[in-house]
């Protein structure tokens, strides 16, 4: 560890330090969802049939669209980092903007999807839900909790990216100092990673 000049007052946190902090944070996120995955696994082994059946209620097409949306957005955010490293500020901002748009599309899709469920009165606590077989209640409960928590992460990621966009604009993030940009991108990739698992588990395995 060559740099010795860390003090409480240094303006910029050393990039290694900051990045490691972010990774550690991602680990906790992983275990947060991990708890849900354990519940999913156990419930699925218990209620295989019901899960089968309930999953057909989900719209695999929207799910697939959202998967593609997130994958593309993951690439654009990775590219924006490349751009800032190459000092192509404008391009970097553009790419982040596209990422934000894609996040918007994702949320729109989710809005329709949830909306549809609500129309069918399929939401936690509803009368319809109450009368379903136990396994299906469980499936929808998990569906809402997992995608809901994920959506919350999309939202946070979106806010983070917006901040980054503004900071690039004001020059606070530049070719020399782009730790925040890097961390924001890492966070966004995590959002993508989680979805990579959610998609087959919830939408596809029917």
């Amino acid at each position, binding site marked *: 560890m060559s*740099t010795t000049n860390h003090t409480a007052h*240094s303006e*910029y946190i*050393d*990039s290694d330090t900051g*990045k*490691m902090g972010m*990774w550690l944070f991602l*680990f906790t996120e*992983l*275990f947060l969802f*991990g708890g849900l*995955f*354990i519940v999913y*696994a*156990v419930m699925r*082994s*218990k209620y295989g049939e019901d899960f089968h059946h309930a999953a057909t209620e989900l719209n*695999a097409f929207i799910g*697939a669209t959202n*998967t*593609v949306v997130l*994958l*593309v957005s*993951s*690439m654009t955010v*990775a*590219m924006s*980092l*490349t751009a800032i*490293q*190459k000092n192509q500020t404008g391009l970097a901002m553009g790419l982040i903007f596209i990422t934000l748009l894609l996040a918007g599309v994702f949320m729109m899709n989710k809005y329709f999807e949830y909306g549809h469920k609500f129309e069918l009165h399929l939401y936690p606590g509803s009368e319809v839900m109450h009368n379903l077989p136990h396994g299906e209640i469980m499936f929808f409960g998990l569906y809402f909790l997992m995608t809901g928590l994920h959506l919350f992460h999309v939202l946070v990621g979106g806010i983070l990216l917006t901040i980054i966009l503004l900071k690039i604009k004001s020059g606070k993030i530049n070719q*020399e*100092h*782009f*730790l925040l940009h*890097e961390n924001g*991108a*890492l966070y966004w*990739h995590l959002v*993508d*990673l989680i979805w*990579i*698992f959610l*998609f*087959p*588990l919830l939408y*596809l*395995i*029917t």
Partner: protein
Amino acid sequence: MNNHDSHITSYALNFKVLLVLLILTTITILVIKLHLGAFTVAMALTLASVKTAIVLTYFMHLKFENLILRLMVGGVFLLFAIIIVITFIDYYFR
């Protein structure tokens, strides 16, 4: 104090990675439509894991990070896998 030593991933590489990911997604969907029975879940999870590995390596630049970080990431995933397996020692034998 700055990011001089960071590796820069080229645009082309990023794009190629996306292509691979999209192809894997398509395969996942196809595999599931084939109804392979018990294998479906295993296949879907394997493919998801491969995709995860790719995102981690390229998009998240793990390939270019120092060994300690890579070990950490690997260790964390391994730990999680072990925890699931141990939990299932209970459920599998019930």
